[in-house]
């Protein structure tokens, strides 16, 4: 009886979480320029529009480019950092790790303002490169956490075994450590990619008026009135996030990635 009540609670909460998204998915199907729910004369017209209307394809392309490259930068910084912290320890690596986790723990406005004044000082304010680098640093936290988790799971005996079989330090890293950490690197990239796509305040402060991303475009459009195309973007973003995390869940161990020790490997 109580167990059923518990399941009901979980179900109700999940329904509440889904509700706004369901409504938004509904309005994205409106045939006209209205935001009605249930949708009126449903069509997929606005989905085509997102990929056709010039004022939306620009932000779409910006967002994809920024997320792709920024996530790459985040991994490029996080991977050596995670390896360093894992392999060496010491106060310096702990300090570096804290520095890597910090951008994500602070209210994003602070980080965004920091980047704003930095790029202004450098004369790169308003450039896409500034947005990409800012996102790259801001999102270092995610691959840093996932890769560190993966490295900690490596049995130290594997490294010693490789050494006894003649592998130099570089060979051990290349043939043992990196292959074992690869799934966690990929998860870290995926997390960073999805979050970069959704990030608003940093992109806005650093280059909001010149490099419009999809979140900025939506927010700007909110002022002039809602159109179903915003619903389309929301639906696509949710679908993309669910696909990425779903893939991690299917191919990896999501509960363990999120900190549950007790959930076994298979």
């Amino acid at each position: 009886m109580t167990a059923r009540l518990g399941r009901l609670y979980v179900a109700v909460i999940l329904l509440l979480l889904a509700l706004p998204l369901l409504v938004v998915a509904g309005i994205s199907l409106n045939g006209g320029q209205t935001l009605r729910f249930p949708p009126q004369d449903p069509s997929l017209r606005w989905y085509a529009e997102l990929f056709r209307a010039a004022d939306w394809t620009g932000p779409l392309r910006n967002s994809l480019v920024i997320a792709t490259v920024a996530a790459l930068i985040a991994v490029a910084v996080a991977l050596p950092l995670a390896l360093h912290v894992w392999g060496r320890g010491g106060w310096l690596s702990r300090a570096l790790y804290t520095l890597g986790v910090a951008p994500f723990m602070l209210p994003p406005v602070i980080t965004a303002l920091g980047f704003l004044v930095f790029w202004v000082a450098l004369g790169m304010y308003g450039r896409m490169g500034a947005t990409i680098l800012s996102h790259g640093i801001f999102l270092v936290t995610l691959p840093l956490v996932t890769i560190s988790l993966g490295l900690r799971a490596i049995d130290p005996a594997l490294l010693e075994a490789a050494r006894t079989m003649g592998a130099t330090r570089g060979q051990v890293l290349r043939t043992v450590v990196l292959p074992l950490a690869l799934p966690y690197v990929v998860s870290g990239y995926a997390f960073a990619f999805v979050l970069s796509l959704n990030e608003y305040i940093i992109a806005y402060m650093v280059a909001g008026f010149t490099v419009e991303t999809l979140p900025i475009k939506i927010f700007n459009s909110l002022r002039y009135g809602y159109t179903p195309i915003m619903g389309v973007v929301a639906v696509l973003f949710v679908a993309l996030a669910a696909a990425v995390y779903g893939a991690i869940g299917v191919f990896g161990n999501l509960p363990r990635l999120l900190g549950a020790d007790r959930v076994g490997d298979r």
Partner: protein
Amino acid sequence: MQANMTSNDLSLHGVTKRFGATAAVDDVTLQIPGGRFICLLGPSGCGKTTLLRLLAGLEAPTAGRILVGGADQTHVPTHRRDFGMVFQSLALFPHLSVGENVAYPLRIRGATRAQRRARAEELLDLVRLPGLTDRRIHQLSGGQRQRVAIARGLAIDPKLFLLDEPLSALDANLREHMQIELRQIQSRLGVTTLVVTHDQKEALTMADIVIVMDRGRVQQMGAPMEVYRDPANAFVAGFIGTSNLLPARLLDAATLEVSGHRLALDPADRVKAPPGPVTLSVRPEDVRLDPEGLPARVTFVRDLGESVQIVLDHQGHEIIALFSPRERPQVNLGDAVGLAFAPGGRVVLP
């Protein structure tokens, strides 16, 4: 095989490893001829694994020198020693196939794909796992993984083959089977092999030479039966097999006094202590029941099928006697009996 014997002699000179104030390995000096199967035996924490890791170069000694075939290895990094090692956890690479695991040392040495595959198949045949080259590690049973680890350790014809409690994860039956097989493989290849174990039966089954360690020091080194029959001290006597240890006093070279009773020693008995307070060590199979002997009381009778164990109490000391079922004395719990020790089975230790 003969060639290996001379070229891969192992010698240690005053090898010491300190962790902070404690010496895990304390001034160990050993000369071991090549081509032998050596078991490093001792209780947990006796320093045997540390000694193995020093040999592998995974730890650096605080003092002393390690030579293999006359060449100083003390400061040679692990990856240039050309040894093979099997870890307690086996340390098989989960991201590589069975064949890739076995051929890993060859890949590091730049062998071609075809060479690696051929060698892997050869080694898998040797450990009786033919046709498993392309399997994943997680598809194997515990015993199969064990064999893969052994094959991998042997891949480069190592100068020294080191194994750290290699069979501890296997269940009892499989373990005994693997002990015999490991010994057979070693005999065939003639590789100098050093196995760390805490299981004295395992050591007696496999070894040419047993090295017993306690508290970082070598207590005794010798052939298994030598160590069993003729323990150097009370620790070895108690650790290898079961020994009954009794406090005694050695009056002269041929007379022993045990709790007020005088025993005449036989020339076949081994006296390793000067006259004075000593420890008498007797194996359970050398304990006899004799009405004329030391007074004792039966506290437990254990019928094990192949043998009968009778536990006796002699003035607060527990004595275990072992009989074959045919020789089983007719005694019951609580019976007062006399206790005697077979001539030649008595070892007098300091």
